[in-house]
């Protein structure tokens, strides 16, 4: 049965999937400090609070991310983005998709 905690985690992961975890040169950033900065980068869809981001990186690792190509400020392209996270405690993987 889905609990409130499950729903909170799923919502948090969906929100995290909005952030970009790639460097400008296309390298996936997985260090905790870089993930936390991406989650808090207001310029690039990262809207986590400091406490939220700290809690998030203590539980989740970024394994991989796909961001669909867009142009004209996002007007052209699907805007699709998906991120694979790994729970550091259980080792379980979660595949999170950006909303519409």
């Amino acid at each position, binding site marked *: 049965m889905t609990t409130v905690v499950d729903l909170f985690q799923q919502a948090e992961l969906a929100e995290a999937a909005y952030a970009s975890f790639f460097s400008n*040169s296309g390298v996936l950033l997985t260090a905790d400090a870089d993930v936390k900065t991406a989650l808090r980068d207001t310029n*690039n869809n990262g809207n986590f609070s400091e406490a939220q981001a700290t809690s998030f990186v203590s539980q989740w690792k970024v394994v991989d991310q796909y961001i669909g190509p867009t142009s004209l400020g996002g007007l052209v392209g699907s*805007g699709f983005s998906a991120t694979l996270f790994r729970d550091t405690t259980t080792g379980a993987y979660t595949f999170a998709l950006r*909303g519409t």
Partner: protein
Amino acid sequence: MMGLIFLLVVGVYVLVSIGVVKGSIAYAQKNGKSVKRWGWGAALVMYLIPFWDWIPTVAVHQYYCATEAGFWVYKTPEQWMKENPGVMETLVANKGASSRYESFDDEHGKSDIYLLNNRFNWIVTQQDYSSALPIIRSEQQVKDARTSEVLARYVDFGTGNSVKNTIGPPGPLKFWLHSGHCNGGGQNQDALRDFRNIFFGEQK
């Protein structure tokens, strides 16, 4: 779902705009006024309601990028190691992403001070740089915590978002204003990250 609502709102706005322009033309014809002037005037007003800040934002963004953005190294790792012999080898990276948070300028600015190890901090700051336009100044520094000396610094500007107001307009709605970096800003950010990585210390 939000995307569909957005498209619906845009569609309604276009229809209302067409109605307003047609209404203005009808009014001008009825009252013997210039049809061209009233028609184009109404179209201009309807265009400016959502897009008034587009050109000023791009212009101000380019100005700040040209005058303030960049990447600077004040002291190379080699110079620092020469001044602090044997210290680099003793640095141990803090586990996780230990940081301290500071808010300033009535929540229009935020700083995350990452404690990389017992000697170096990585400071990430974002700040609303204009009260009228959605322009964010981003700055990152690698700092020697013991001497407060900044070893390298990166400054960049993005548009279309606000540090204080992350949800409401312009936020995600005015997508045409979105720009994450100045030209070359992404490369500068990567350069600062590479510089920072040298000072991370040993991972244990």
